C-alpha cells in the first residue's frame, strides 16, 4: 500500500493540472466577453488588450437606448415561457398516454414524434414561414411560440416518457380502483411524481427557446425580435460596436448561466436521461 502512494499523488497532480486547463479553456472566452462589456469603446479597441482599466457599466444602460433591448428581452421571455408551458402540458399528456395506454402502433407514433426533432430547422423554416405569412402572424410572439413547438413538443414527449416509465404502475392502479378518472390520476398522482422530470424538461425547452436564432431571424421584424437576433444588430456597416454587443451578450447569457447554476442537478440528470434513454 505504501509503495502506491507516490504514484497516486502524481496521478492527482496530473489530473489537477488537466482540470485547470479544461476550466480555463471553458471559462476564458465568456470572461473575455464580460471584460469587453465593462470597457469603454476606446479601451475595447486597444491593442494589445488592456487588462487593467477603469471598469465602466454605462454600456449596459446604453444598449437599452441603442436598440429596443427592453422589448427584445420581454419578447424572449414571453416566447420562451409560453412555449415551455405549452410543451410541458401537451408533452406530458402525450408522454403519459404513450407509456400508459396499450394501442396499436404506439411505438411507431413515439418514433414519429422523435423523428420530427431530427428535421433540420432550415428545412422546417421555409414552409412554416409561408404558413405563418398566410395566417398574417409574422413578426408576432405567437409565430415564434408556434414555431418552437416543432422542436419543444417532441423533446418534451421523449424526455418525459422515460420519467413516466419509472413510476410503478401499482400506485396509479390503486387510484383508478378508488374511482379516479385517468385524468384525475394523471394530474393528481402521476404528474407530481415526475416533478423532477418536468423541471428538467422545462429548463431545457426554455433554454432551447431562449437561444433559438434561425426562426427568430426569419420570422420576426422589429416588433417581435428576440435577444439573439438583436445581438447581430451591433454588427454594423461602420464596424462592430464591441463593448455594447458584449454587454448585450452578457445580458443574453447571464440568465441561462444563473439558471444552470441553480438547477445544476436536474439539468445534468435531464441531459443524460434525454441522451441515453
Amino acid at each position, binding site marked *: 500500500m505504501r509503495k502506491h502512494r507516490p504514484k497516486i499523488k502524481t496521478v492527482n497532480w496530473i489530473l489537477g493540472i488537466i*482540470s485547470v486547463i479544461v476550466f480555463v479553456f471553458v471559462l476564458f472566452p465568456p470572461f473575455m466577453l464580460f471584460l469587453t462589456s465593462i470597457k469603454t469603446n476606446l479601451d475595447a479597441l486597444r491593442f494589445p488588450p488592456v487588462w487593467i482599466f477603469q471598469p465602466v457599466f454605462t454600456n449596459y444602460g446604453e444598449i437599452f437606448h441603442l436598440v429596443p433591448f427592453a422589448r427584445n428581452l420581454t419578447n424572449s421571455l414571453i416566447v420562451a415561457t409560453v412555449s415551455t408551458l405549452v410543451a410541458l402540458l401537451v408533452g406530458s399528456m402525450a408522454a403519459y*398516454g404513450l407509456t400508459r*395506454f396499450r394501442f396499436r402502433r404506439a411505438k411507431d407514433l413515439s418514433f414519429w414524434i422523435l423523428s420530427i426533432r431530427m428535421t433540420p430547422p432550415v428545412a422546417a423554416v421555409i414552409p412554416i414561414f409561408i404558413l405563418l405569412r398566410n395566417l398574417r402572424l409574422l413578426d408576432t410572439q405567437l409565430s415564434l411560440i408556434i414555431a418552437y413547438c416543432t422542436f419543444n*413538443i417532441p423533446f418534451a414527449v421523449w424526455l418525459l416518457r422515460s420519467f413516466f416509465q419509472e413510476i410503478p404502475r401499482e400506485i396509479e392502479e390503486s387510484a383508478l380502483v378508488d374511482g379516479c378518472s385517468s385524468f384525475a390520476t394523471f394530474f393528481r398522482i402521476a404528474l407530481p411524481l415526475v416533478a423532477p422530470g418536468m423541471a428538467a424538461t422545462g429548463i431545457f425547452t426554455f433554454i432551447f427557446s431562449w437561444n433559438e436564432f434561425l426562426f427568430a431571424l426569419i420570422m420576426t421584424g422589429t416588433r417581435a425580435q428576440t435577444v439573439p437576433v438583436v445581438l447581430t444588430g451591433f454588427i454594423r456597416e461602420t464596424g462592430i460596436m464591441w463593448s455594447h454587443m458584449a454587454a448585450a451578450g452578457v445580458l443574453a447569457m447571464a440568465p441561462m448561466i444563473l439558471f444552470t447554476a441553480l438547477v445544476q442537478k436536474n439539468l445534468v440528470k435531464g441531459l443524460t436521461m434525454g441522451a441515453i434513454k
Partner: protein
Amino acid sequence: MMKRNLEKFAPLLFIGPAVFILLFIVIFPMVYSWALSFAEWNLMRGGDWRFVGLRNYAQALLHDPHFYTSLRVTLIYVILAVGIQFLLGLVIALLLNRPLKRVGFLRTVLVIPTTMTPVVVGIIWRLLYNPELGTINYFLSLFGFRPLSWLGDPSLALPSVIMADIWQWTPFMALILLAGLQALPREPYEASVVDGATTLQTFRLITFPLLLPTIIVALLLRIMDAFKIFDLIFILTGGGPGMTTEVLSFYTYRFGFKFFHMGRAAAMSLLLFAILFVITQIFLKYYRAGEER
C-alpha cells in the same frame, strides 16, 4: 355516463393534442415543402407557382458545383468537429469519473457552454479571433508569432469555426459520456482487477464495449446538430471567405431568404433532410444491434 364516455377516449385525449399540433405545424408544412420543391416560386416577384417537375433537384444535384462544395464543407465540419469533441470529451469523462470532491461545481462549469446562445458564442469567438484586437493574436504575439486573420484567411476560416464549435460542445459530450460511465455496472471491473488487467486492457475490453450505446447516442445527437449548424456560421463568417465555410444549411438559407428561390430552397432543404435521415438510420441500426447484444 358522461365520465365513462370520456374514459373511453382517454388515450385520444391524452395523445391527441400533441399529435394535432405536430400535424398542423410539421406535417402540413412538410407536405407543402414537398410540393414547393417541384415548383418555381419567387417570393419577391409574387405570382403563382409554376410546376417544374424535378428541375430544382436536378439543378442542385447535376448543375450546381456549389451544392457539392457546401456538402463537402458540411461533411468536413461534422467529421472534424464531432470527432474532436468525442475524443476530448471521452478523455475528460474518464478523468472525471472518480469520486472527486466538488464534482458538482465542475459539472456546473462544464455545462455553461452548452446552455449558451450560439449567437453569443459566435460573438465571443469573433472577439477572440479579431485580427486587430483579438486576444488570440495577442497571445501569439507574446510568443513571437505574427498575427493571423483567423476568419478571413480561406485556409483558416473553417478550422476556426470548428474550434468555436468544439469549445461549445466538448463539455456536453463529456457530460453525457460521464453519465454513461457512472451508470456502468461495477462487477466486470472487480473481475478485471482480480485478473490483473492493465488500465488500457480494462478500457478496451470492458469500458468501451459497455459504453458503446451511450457513445452512439452521443455521436448521433452531435452529428445531427452539427449538420444543421447555422447560427455560428452566420455570426462568424457568413459562409466566407469565398465559400470556405458555406455549410449546406447556410447555402439553403441564402437561396430561400436572400435570393427568394423558394422552390429551389425547398428542394435543397429536403436533400439535407434526406442525408440526415440516412445517417440517423445507420446509427440507429448500430444502436439497436448494440442493445440486443
